[in-house]
């Protein structure tokens, strides 16, 4: 009984996170300016990280934890590189 309840709760929170990733995708696709797109991408990375953590809870496997950590790292590096590019026009000075 409690397992079924928890399974439903996990699925609905995954839907909520998916909706939030949809909002971020909209901001990334629509702009209007480049900084808005980068901001949307950053929020999208965060949504993906948290969604992977919920998959970890759902399956009880720690594999998803490592994937979430890797996505978080990639998101940080990617957003910093894009922000530097917006400011200077190049990434490595």
């Amino acid at each position: 009984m409690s397992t079924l309840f928890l399974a439903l709760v996990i699925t609905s929170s995954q839907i909520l996170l998916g909706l939030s990733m949809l909002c971020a995708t909209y901001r990334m696709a629509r702009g209007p300016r480049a900084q808005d797109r980068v901001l949307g991408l950053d929020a999208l990375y965060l949504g993906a990280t948290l969604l992977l953590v919920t998959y970890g809870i759902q399956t009880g496997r720690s594999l998803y934890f490592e994937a979430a950590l890797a996505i978080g790292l990639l998101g940080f590096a990617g957003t910093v590189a894009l922000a530097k590019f917006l400011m200077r026009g190049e990434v490595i000075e």
Partner: protein
Amino acid sequence: MIQGPDLPTWAAVIVGLLLLTGATTTLIGTLGLLQLKSFYERVHAPTLGTTLGAALILAASMVSFSVLQSRPVIHEILIGVFVTLTTPVTLMLLARAAIYRDRSEGASRVPTDGPRRTPPA
């Protein structure tokens, strides 16, 4: 895919509550991304997800794994530390890039470099 871990009822209630509130907080943050009017207002929106949203979902994961394996599992704290330390860095860089771009285009609503002259002593 309806599937869930086999937790006792008290743990299931805790994990479920933490997950739902965390996911809702993150969703509210990104709704702000849609709804707020200017870029400088929108930068504030994702911080909801990176602070309270991430903390609650990671706490749910910690409780779930600790109960399942009946030993404390706290490696999710690494994601938490990482997210809270890196998000300010990216947001600051992004805000500085935005303000630099706006200034070079001469936007009127952005403060210039020296609006407040310090009075001579």
